[in-house]
């Protein structure tokens, strides 16, 4: 028997879970949307951001410094990777892109394992967000509530960057027709480098923001990568609003199914993805032709 209190609790939990998934997925979808590269290293970048933040936290004890470090470090990693590796694969077959990003993911994971071993590392939440909040219908970890706000601000910033700035305009134009943008005298190469950096930064930011919720381990990106792919497929591959919608839908499916039968939470998520692929192959908010 499902109680009303549990239903409301799970509905809310689905929102919080979905917000996190949306944030993690946004980086993946930005990179694919702009560059056409399906980045299998996205989960590993998520993990890398967490560890970079963890190191910063270990030295400074400041969560804010940890978040800035995690995000900036991954921006730099993204830019360097794009220049050194990824740009050589733009015109190569998708399977080459998959293989190279998969290889990069393995390198990231094993490097982290070499330095930090397999035991979990914990980053505590900032003191103002520690503890539990009484929502009336349930008690909820204060930090998870804060994450909903942090994610909302971060996604808004990404949205404004993509839709309200000159850079965003060039990115979106580059997505539609990079040759035309190039012929207008704009340096598309540099834009692509920045876009890959921003996508990686989004993963790194999500990694460190998520660290107080789920402690860090070298393999943590693997499971996240699968979930983010599901989110992106549901929302629409390459669609930024789609990643947000997909994230929220995925969060609610996982949460609400668990009320009925917890063993089927993820089964239902994949079933939903299958349904979307059958009925709307380009995803809920995806643009036809880019799937």
């Amino acid at each position, binding site marked *: 028997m499902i109680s009303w209190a549990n239903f409301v609790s799970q509905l809310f939990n689905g929102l919080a879970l979905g917000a996190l998934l949306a944030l993690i997925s946004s980086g993946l979808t930005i990179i694919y949307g702009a560059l056409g590269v399906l980045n299998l290293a996205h989960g590993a970048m998520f993990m890398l951001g967490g560890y970079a933040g963890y190191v910063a936290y270990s030295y400074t004890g400041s969560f804010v410094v940890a978040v800035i470090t995690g995000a900036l470090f991954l921006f730099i990693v993204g830019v360097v990777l794009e220049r050194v590796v990824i740009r050589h694969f733009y015109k190569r077959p998708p399977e080459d892109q998959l293989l190279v990003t998969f290889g990069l993911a393995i390198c990231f994971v094993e490097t982290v394992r070499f330095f930090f071993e*397999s035991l*979990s590392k*914990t980053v505590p939440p900032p003191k103002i967000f520690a503890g*539990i909040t009484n929502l009336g219908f*349930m008690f909820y*970890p204060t930090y998870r509530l804060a994450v909903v706000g942090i994610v909302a601000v971060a996604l808004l910033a990404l949205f404004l960057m993509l839709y309200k700035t000159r850079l965003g305009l060039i990115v979106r134009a580059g997505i539609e027709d990079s040759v035309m943008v190039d012929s207008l005298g704009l340096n598309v190469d540099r834009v692509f480098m920045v876009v890959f950096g921003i996508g990686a930064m989004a993963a790194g930011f999500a990694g460190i923001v998520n660290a107080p*919720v789920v402690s860090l381990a*070298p393999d943590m990106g693997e499971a996240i990568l699968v979930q983010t792919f599901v989110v992106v497929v549901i929302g629409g591959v390459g669609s930024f609003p789609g990643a947000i919608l997909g994230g929220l839908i995925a969060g609610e499916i996982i949460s609400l199914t*668990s009320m009925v039968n917890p063993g089927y939470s993820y089964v239902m998520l994949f079933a939903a993805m299958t349904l979307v692929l059958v009925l709307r192959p380009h995803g809920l908010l995806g643009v036809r032709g880019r799937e």
Partner: protein
Amino acid sequence: MHDSSDSKGQSRRDFLRTGLGVAGGLALPVGFTSQAFAANEPPIGTWPAGSSGSAVNACACVPLTGSYAAQGADELKGMQLAVEHINEGHPLMKAISPKTTKGVLGKELKLLFADSAAKPNDAVQAAQRFISENKVILMTGSTSSAVAVAMNKLAQREKVLYMAGISGSNDTTGKDCVRYGVRQNFYGQTAAAAIGPVLVKQFGKNRKAAFMTPDYTYGHTVTKSVNDYLSQNAGWQMVTNQVSPLGTQDFSQYLTNIANSGAEFLINVNWGRDAVLSTQQAHQFGILPKMTLVIPYQIPFLSQEVGADIMQGVYAATDFWWTLEDKYPLSKQFVDAFQKKYNYRPEWGAENGYVSFAHWAHMVEEAGTFYPPAVIKTYEKGETLQSLVGPVSYRPQDHQCIRPVIIVKGKKPGDMKNKEDFWEVVEILPGAPLMQAPDAFGCKLGDYT
């Protein structure tokens, strides 16, 4: 001339000769006869090819990545220390396997290993490769009962002995037992029978418990055993059972259900990183310490990763805890040797790995041959042999080691004497009374050849 022939035409001299031969044969070491016996047998598995050189290979398929990576690495270290001790004839190894000199039957033992990621397919593929390319004579490693069950089947098919590494499922020596599989460590049934009375004594009857269960053979059988004990003996009620896939990172949806379940106890059967995350998140949700946490099948490094603040007062059942060195001299030797080599005190996965190898070395030395059926039959003699926690034996009917189960309780941070002093040993329970009847879980061992 006096005829000494009897009525069947057999001379007294023949009779005496035969009698002396039989007596002489009986007086010979068991190994000699087994060796002579085995020499006449047709090849089986990797025998005799795998043991024809100056060295023999064993393989360990342990998770070095994934949710059980930390536990797999610890397990492997225990195995590697055992192999080192076998090859050098270390006094600790000789205390468990007295006939060990250097190596096994005079041959150097080499341990090959592969990462299974706790996935049955990966483990079986790696082991199959070790069998065909390296002619391994022994397989081990699991840290997931799903792997142990799959390896059991491979062992029986390939006729190569398999010692389960960490494996808590009742099925490993229950319905999925095989002639070619043995297990040293404790398991769901013995864990439940050991921790159940402690919980009832501490917390009384008719309590409400929420279970968290990983969705595979280990989780389901441990949860069933613990719930059966508590409900049948003390009227405890399972108010919810949150089943999650192995490798889950965010447990919020499961914990939300538990928070609304009215449970007084959280019995967390999750293992490895899943146990760490689910316990940490239960604390974040305020479920702990509101509910009392119970860990029926202890997880190496859990306290270290979660912290003594959360783990204080928590009851758990385990195979080994390093402070047993105060009671058992062999444990002391093991902890010292392990700490010297690896710079930390061993967890129970390492202990299980070490003891399993020591027992195997004992069996092979006793059998006097690597011929697999002879080694298996030595296990099946059920003789008493040493372990790090006193005398133990293997049950011939299901190849499960009859060994004590240790009940521990999490220490308060202020009571810890060093940074690894997380648990206090509360009880050491003899294994035999905790075990089910040998056929209760449907074990049918299968053929020797």
